């Protein structure tokens, strides 16, 4: 197969032909795209607005924002919750689809995970913007210091920090690990050009060769991370909801907030993902990769989330309306009048009415209508957080302070800038790294191909690739079926396949077949989880004993906060140990090197096998020459 035979764009099949190493999926990285670059620069300028406004706020004081007494939290917390919500798109969706083995996920995982990482990066800035003294934010970090400061693990904000750190670390690694084979793909493709870019991609791909041992490690690692990241994602937005639900504030003190926030987060996340996908599809002409079926399936998931979110919203407001608790009634009344009512109506229209009018129909689940509905939902979910934050704070229990809140241009600038920052990071990622997972798509194709009847191919023997020993030969194989043929003939000739490289995992090929023991990734993961959990448990419980300041009549070592921190620590330990094990597996096989020319053939989807025999005759027999 050559490049000319396989053109991505020309195929009409739903699953495109990726035998040429992804063609357009990689090509756009190597080509100068003026429009994309312009968009990136523009987004970067918008992002600058955020930092200019923040700078002004730091210089003059938080008073330049519209927040006041009693509405102490405003745009920044709303937008923080908003971005953390958006971040639930990717990793969660990609993890759920990976765990359930949904084959149609393959083209969407990477761009979804990127949404998560960048939304978290942007969202993670907001608690800092929100601080009165952002320059001493490190007072919240548990590290031994001469100030005798220690964080209060009973505070939901500390849980928040712990959970978001875990989630950001986890999703960054969950994005990076599956990127390795594709980074290597780009590295091999530009090997002939050399230069800085090749060096960077060589370093980033950590010596990925595509050996069975590496594939095994990666496969195990991704499976473990996918399972681990789901409870982490759920815990993150639950804990964000607890920032509100742990308080005495009427309208916030609610047991429904945990699941309500998680559902809302996933809802807004899918919306942002659909917008990103629709733009990618147009911008990079990827209509065969990000195909209609993908949009249709995600559209159905989106519809399910609409219904769930609508159900939660109705329940939440129904209970406050009905129960007649005085303080909550006041909040409810404030919500049902003036500007708040307008916001409420707008939210219901864009989040429930429009999606329900469009999504149930097949035409509504095509890219353009989906993207438009998604834009509405993204805005609507931001409004939802306004509804949660502002009316409750405007109506404190003692009615002396009649609250009202309207943002200043500083807050609006920071909101707009944050959208710019997100777009900037995303566009940059799109231009520098493969936004669609090439190897996963190829893996799907190989699995399909493998299911079909094997054809006969004659094997192609490459030159012994710089190995002076005549009893070693490199063989280029076109398909997995060829590999089977080689395995049979090698066994007949008493020869061994000592090296195997492919640009996608090969079905039925394990690390053991190249005579190397696989790295026990799961064992690493479990040990990591144990250590992480134990460490977090000790951190939250023992350190409180060393710093015994009573707060709110709680025990010094309070059970639930320790449990929450231990939970996150367990997940963090598991994630870090898993990644460590995968990197170990990858680095162990980094010496399997062939010439650049052969490596670039790997990039076109072929399989490289190294056969070793005791004599040249046996070798000839093994490779069928």
């Amino acid at each position, binding site marked *: 197969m050559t490049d000319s035979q396989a053109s991505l764009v020309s195929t009409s099949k739903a699953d495109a032909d990726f035998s040429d190493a992804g063609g357009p999926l990689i090509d756009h990285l190597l080509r100068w795209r003026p429009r994309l670059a312009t968009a990136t620069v523009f987004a970067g300028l918008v992002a600058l607005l955020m930092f200019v406004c923040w700078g002004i706020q730091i210089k003059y004081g938080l008073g330049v924002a519209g927040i006041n007494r009693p509405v102490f939290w405003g745009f920044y917390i709303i937008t923080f919750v908003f971005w953390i919500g958006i971040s639930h798109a990717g990793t969660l969706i990609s993890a759920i689809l990976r765990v359930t083995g949904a084959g149609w996920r393959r083209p969407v995982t990477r761009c979804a995970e990127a949404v998560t990482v960048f939304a978290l990066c942007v969202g993670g800035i907001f608690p800092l913007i929100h601080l009165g003294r952002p320059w001493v934010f490190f007072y919240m970090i548990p590290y031994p210091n001469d100030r005798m400061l220690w964080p209060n693990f009973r505070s939901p904000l500390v849980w928040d920090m712990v959970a978001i750190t875990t989630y950001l670390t986890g999703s960054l690694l969950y994005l990076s690990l599956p990127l390795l084979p594709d980074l290597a793909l780009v590295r091999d493709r530009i090997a002939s050009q050399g230069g800085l870019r090749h060096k960077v991609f060589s370093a980033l791909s950590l010596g990925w060769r595509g050996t069975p041992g590496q594939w095994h490690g990666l496969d195990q690692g991704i499976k473990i991370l996918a399972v681990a990241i789901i409870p982490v994602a759920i815990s993150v937005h639950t804990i964000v909801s607890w920032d509100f639900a742990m308080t005495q504030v009427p309208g916030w003190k609610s047991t429904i907030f945990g699941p309500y926030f998680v559902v809302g987060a996933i809802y807004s996340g899918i919306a942002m993902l659909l917008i990103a996908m629709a733009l990618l599809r147009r911008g990079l002409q990827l209509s065969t990769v990000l195909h209609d079926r993908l949009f249709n399936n995600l559209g159905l998931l989106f519809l399910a989330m609409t219904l769930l979110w609508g159900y939660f919203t109705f329940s939440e407001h129904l209970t406050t309306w009905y129960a007649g608790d005085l303080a909550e009634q006041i909040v409810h009344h404030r919500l049902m009048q003036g500007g708040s009512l307008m916001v409420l109506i707008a939210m219901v229209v864009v989040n429930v009415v429009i999606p329900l009018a469009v999504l149930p129909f097949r035409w509504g689940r095509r890219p353009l209508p989906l993207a438009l509905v998604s834009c509405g939902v993204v805005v609507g979910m931001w409004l939802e957080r306004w509804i949660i934050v502002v009316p409750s704070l405007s109506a404190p229990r*003692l009615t002396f302070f009649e609250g009202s809140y309207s943002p200043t241009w500083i807050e609006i600038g920071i909101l707009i800038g944050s959208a710019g920052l997100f777009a900037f990071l995303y566009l940059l990622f799109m231009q520098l790294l493969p936004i669609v997972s090439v190897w996963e798509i190829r893996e799907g194709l190989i699995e399909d191909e493998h299911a079909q009847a094997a054809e006969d191919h004659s094997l192609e023997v490459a030159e012994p690739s710089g190995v002076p020993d005549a009893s070693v030969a490199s063989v280029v194989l076109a398909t997995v079926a060829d590999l089977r043929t080689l395995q049979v003939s090698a066994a007949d000739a008493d020869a061994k396949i000592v090296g195997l490289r492919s640009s996608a995992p090969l079905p039925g090929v394990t690390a053991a077949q190249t005579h190397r023991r696989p790295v026990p990734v799961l064992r690493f993961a479990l040990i990591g989880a144990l250590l992480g959990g134990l460490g977090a448990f000790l951190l939250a419980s023992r350190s409180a004993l060393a710093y015994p300041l009573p707060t709110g009549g709680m025990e010094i070592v309070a059970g639930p906060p320790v449990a929450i921190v231990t939970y996150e620590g367990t997940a963090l330990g598991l994630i870090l140990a898993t990644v460590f094990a995968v990197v170990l597996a990858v680095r162990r096989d980094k010496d399997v090197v062939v010439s650049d020319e052969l490596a670039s053939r790997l990039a076109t989807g072929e399989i490289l096998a190294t056969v070793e025999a005791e004599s040249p005759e046996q070798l000839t027999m093994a490779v069928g020459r």
Partner: protein
Amino acid sequence: MTSWGMAIDTDRCDGCNACVVACNAENNIPTVGAPEARKGRTMHWLRIERSVEGEFPDAKVRFRPVLCQQCDHAPCEPVCPVYATYHNPEGLNAMVYSRCVGTRYCANNCPYSVRTFNWFEPVFVEPLNEQLNPDVSVRTAGVMEKCTFCVQRIQEGKQNAKADGRAVRDGEIQPACAQSCPPKAITFGDFDNPDSAVSRAARSDRAERLLGDLGTQPSVVYLSGPADRAERQSDD
């Protein structure tokens, strides 16, 4: 042990605001000017809530000075991520300005809305800049603050007593608000001493605690006539 507390007799309070002014002067509380005050950014640690009971001409105005209630189970304390506010051994809801990072979480969780925030660097216009209290730190922009029960006066009183080799006498320590109240509506003292004036006031059937059903266990009791109290409870 000591457990500082306060009794405020709202039947005596005539809403003169002397306590508010005294508090500002004692505790280096900045004034913010009309435009900021309109945004709800006043800094007073003590405010006088006014409510009208009954219909004209039988209307009666009631004043209620509201300050930090120094709750035993203070909702503001556990939510602070950096222990900037915590419970000290004398029952005070202590505020450590230098630890505060300014999340304003405590202020949201205070059901009495008594916490104030330094939205800007404080400004003391002439001649207020000449009369700052050297016993009290001036807070910087970005930190929370609130009533301390004049902790600097409590310390002074304890030191004087210690120097004389005796216990602190009831009524010896007076916060600025109590000291300046013309009708003597505010009493300050030790709840752990059953004979102190505040303890006697707290035992009276005229005593009630603000939003007592929240379980915050405030250290401030409000005294009012039983008849008035029943009436007001239906309003609250």
